[in-house]
């Protein structure tokens, strides 16, 4: 130390900083250690850490709204949810285009389900509207067909909308396919994807947009040739809206073929009988008249949302900020509390039952304690499902325990105790399952307490109790701490046992997570609940690591 003067870093004999030459000398050693660790680290990162990160990501992910309703979310940006008024016809039109595409891709029910987590009723609104959306714009379709019969023919639309280059490509592809069929060869080249004609989107923005969507869906989802498919009714709606807006000069800028079709249509639209989109929607489901529906879409239009986390703590996001969940839907705080309560109860029961056993084991002669230790290790090594099924057999109303109680007359046959499918069942079974995790750390700590301390205390005049309580017990506290945290960590995330013996009142948050994954399909909420649970467990893990050191876990 005396060489470490105040003149900055230590230098080696040749003047290089000591740290650097040390590092150079250690590099090989570090590298070798890391080479040994690396395969496993990579393995765990890929098979374990990445999946968990990926799942947690779902708790904030919300692309589905903006992916499914891109036009609507954009159009809704200007809408003031506090105005109490419904959005404009432009928004309804945007929603129509989005919904018809979503319904074709069968995405709208999933979106409805997603939004239903936030505002009840949305699922049904989207389903019902999805069934009708094909018809929106039918009025215009009919009127166009009357004014310009050309527009009823799919081919006309391709002429107006499609890039001539694409048409050529498509024709070439069709020819190649026909040739392949003739020779019996396999042909799996996908058709060239629809391309819009240059400039048409400037003049007919909505119609071009919706038609392009239509053409691509026809190709990709159904494998059809757009030139042979009749466009959706909403395409006519879009055309009507475009033509109502464009000036007479705009049509002139189109190519000849398109002009021939659209000019008469343009002249005719002014005389069309129009219909309010809002009325169509309200007719499909009167829910569309509720501003709450729209503000939910608006509130959840961003790609990431705190919504699931809010829902996990019985809050919800509204356009006006965060609010409490409706009273009859608040269950998660209660579930978290119950999980904590039951974990604590299990932990407490484990201390009560584990301490005497560990004490006995630690203070018996080694030969006897080794034999008794096997009685602790046997449950530890026995399949969890075996132990759970035992408890099912034992705790049932017609089970062994009730039989015994009835037989010795403690319980009347008609009033057998209900010990399963409730909290009692879960706590008893899990105490049994986790008890070895309390006994083993306690035992390993108690074994290191030399008997001389208690002897010294007794020689100094302490009674048995005082010697135990003042001298022995304090030294066993680290074992209690280790056992408690271990049992608590394991208990709080338990799934199997509560699922099998817990009924409805004896289940944990884990069971709710599983429910949301496999039954209600609310994966985002499952991920958010999982994140919270994981955070609690990691906190405890950190504490455990601090107190005990994770590599000091004893496994019997």
């Amino acid at each position, binding site marked *: 130390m005396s060489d470490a003067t105040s003149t900055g870093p230590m230098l080696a004999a040749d003047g290089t900083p000591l740290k650097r030459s040390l590092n150079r000398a250690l590099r090989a050693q570090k590298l070798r250690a890391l080479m040994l660790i690396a395969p496993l680290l990579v393995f765990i990162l890929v098979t374990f850490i990445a999946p968990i990160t990926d799942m947690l990501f779902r708790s904030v992910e919300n692309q589905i709204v903006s992916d499914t309703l891109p036009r609507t979310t954009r159009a809704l940006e200007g809408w003031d949810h506090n105005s109490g008024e419904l959005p404009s016809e432009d928004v309804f039109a945007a929603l129509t285009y989005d919904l018809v595409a979503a319904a074709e*891709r*069968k*995405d709208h*029910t*999933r979106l409805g*389900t997603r939004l*239903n*987590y936030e505002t*009840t*009723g949305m*699922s*049904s609104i989207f*389903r*019902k509207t*999805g069934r009708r959306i094909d018809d929106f714009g039918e009025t215009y379709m009919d009127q166009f067909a009357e004014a310009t019969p050309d527009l009823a023919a799919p081919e006309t639309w391709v002429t107006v909308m499609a890039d001539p280059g694409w048409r050529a490509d498509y024709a070439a592809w069709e020819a190649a396919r026909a040739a392949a069929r003739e020779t019996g060869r396999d042909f799996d080249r996908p058709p060239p994807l629809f391309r819009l004609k240059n400039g048409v989107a400037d003049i007919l923005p909505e119609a071009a947009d919706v038609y392009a969507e239509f053409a691509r869906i026809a190709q990709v989802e159904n494998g059809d040739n757009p030139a042979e498919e009749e466009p959706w009714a909403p395409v006519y709606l879009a055309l009507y809206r475009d033509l109502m807006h464009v000036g007479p000069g705009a049509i002139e800028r189109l190519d000849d073929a398109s002009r021939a079709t659209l000019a008469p249509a343009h002249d005719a639209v002014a005389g069309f009988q129009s219909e309010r989109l809002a009325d169509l929607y309200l007719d499909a489901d009167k829910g569309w008249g509720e501003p709450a529906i729209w503000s939910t879409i608006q509130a959840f239009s961003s790609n990431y949302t705190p919504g699931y986390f809010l829902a996990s703590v019985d809050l919800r996001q509204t356009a006006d900020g965060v609010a409490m969940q409706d009273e*009859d*839907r*608040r*269950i998660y705080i*209660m*579930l978290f509390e119950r999980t904590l309560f039951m974990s604590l109860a299990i932990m407490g029961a484990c201390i009560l039952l584990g301490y005497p056993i560990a004490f006995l084991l630690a203070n018996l002669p080694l030969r006897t304690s080794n034999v008794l230790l096997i009685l602790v290790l046997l449950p530890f090594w026995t399949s969890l499902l075996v132990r759970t099924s035992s408890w099912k057999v034992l705790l*049932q*109303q*017609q089970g062994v325990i009730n039989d015994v109680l009835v037989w010795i007359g403690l319980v009347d046959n*008609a009033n057998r105790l*209900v010990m399963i*499918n409730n909290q009692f069942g879960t706590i008893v079974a899990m105490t049994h399952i986790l008890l070895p995790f309390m006994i083993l750390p306690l035992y390993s700590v108690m074994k290191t307490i030399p008997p001389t301390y208690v002897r010294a205390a007794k020689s100094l005049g302490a009674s048995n109790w005082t010697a135990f309580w003042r001298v022995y017990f304090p030294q066993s506290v680290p074992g209690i701490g280790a056992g408690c945290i271990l049992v608590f960590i394991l208990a709080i995330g338990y799934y199997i046992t509560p699922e099998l013996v817990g*009924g*409805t009142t004896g289940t944990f948050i884990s069971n*709710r997570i599983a*429910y949301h*994954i*496999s*039954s*209600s*399909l609310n994966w985002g909420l499952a991920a958010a609940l999982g994140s919270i649970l994981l955070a609690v467990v990691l906190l405890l893990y950190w504490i455990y690591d601090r107190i005990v050191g994770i590599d000091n876990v004893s496994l019997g």
Partner: protein
Amino acid sequence: MTMKQLLSATALAALPAGALFAQDLPPCENCADSITAVSWGGAYQTSQIKAYAEPYTALTGTTFTWDESSNEAVAKLRAQSEAGNITWDLVDVEGPDSQRLCDEGLAMEVDHDEILAAGDDGSAPTDDFSDSVINDCFIPQIVFSTTFGYRTDVSAWNGNEPDNLCALFDLETFPGKRSLEKRPKKNIEWALLCDGVAKDELYDVLSTPEGLERALAKLDTIKSETIWWSAGAETPQRLADGEVVMGSTYNGRLFSLIVEQNQPVKMLWDWQVFDFDGWVIPADLPEDRLNRVLHFLHFATDTQRLADQAKYISYGPARASSQPLVSTHADLGIEMAPHMPTNPENQKNYLVNNIEWWADNQDDVEARFQAWLAQ
């Protein structure tokens, strides 16, 4: 294994009328040689294996892997489709789930008249199946119903026996634990029926916010006495163990409990709820697997095969043309017709699940019900 082979061999030998030989079955070209089928487990899955899979295997050598995941079919199919890795070939689902799978594009739309066999009376499949074809993805198999079973030896009932559904809510006369499904469907309908709502008004009442609360309030009266089930085998098991005194489950499960296992349990047909159960094919199957599945379905849903299933379980075939062929139980030799939910004796009071209403409201009602359950 030997036991089962023996059974299936005798089953095949015993039915000259419906017997098929390999040459009767059109060959399957470009077909996978195995099928992963998803069903509900228990007696129902066994009946499918006996009536469809084993004869099919005998004819074609196709191997079957059974997954008892129908409960979670929607979730698992959604995850598989998200991943683009469909591991299932054929999924047995209830009507509403098929609706959902179809709506989300997870199940393949089929042309029933094209892929299914005509009835043996020559009727077109869509006519033969008629109402049971509830959507474009659903290939019906059976009509089943959810009914109640009760123990006949409950001393606390003083010799009374329930004769109608509302005994469920009568804890005075019929004390003891109940077993009900851990889902709102059927439970809330029954609750309203026993709360005095007429059958025709059920879904109108349920469509109002108060309707659902009214149903839950009725269920509240027996909530503390109810054990909730999520698998159809739980109620029969609990009835047999004496864990519960009455409970709802599928009529076929009760049939095997009462008739095959001779337990002191009786069936209450009052307000049984009809449902359809059938196959859906996951969307976007590879061609060879799809071919195999279609080949199998053509065989497994023909008139004889659907009638055969009723030898093993008391569910009604979904084809009209199969009804007259329903005969006796394969092992017990008893007439199956009286045990069918469609038997006129059994359907004095009955409900048919309103699939559309449930498709629209499932998410809402489910969420509210689960919250109610947890509270």
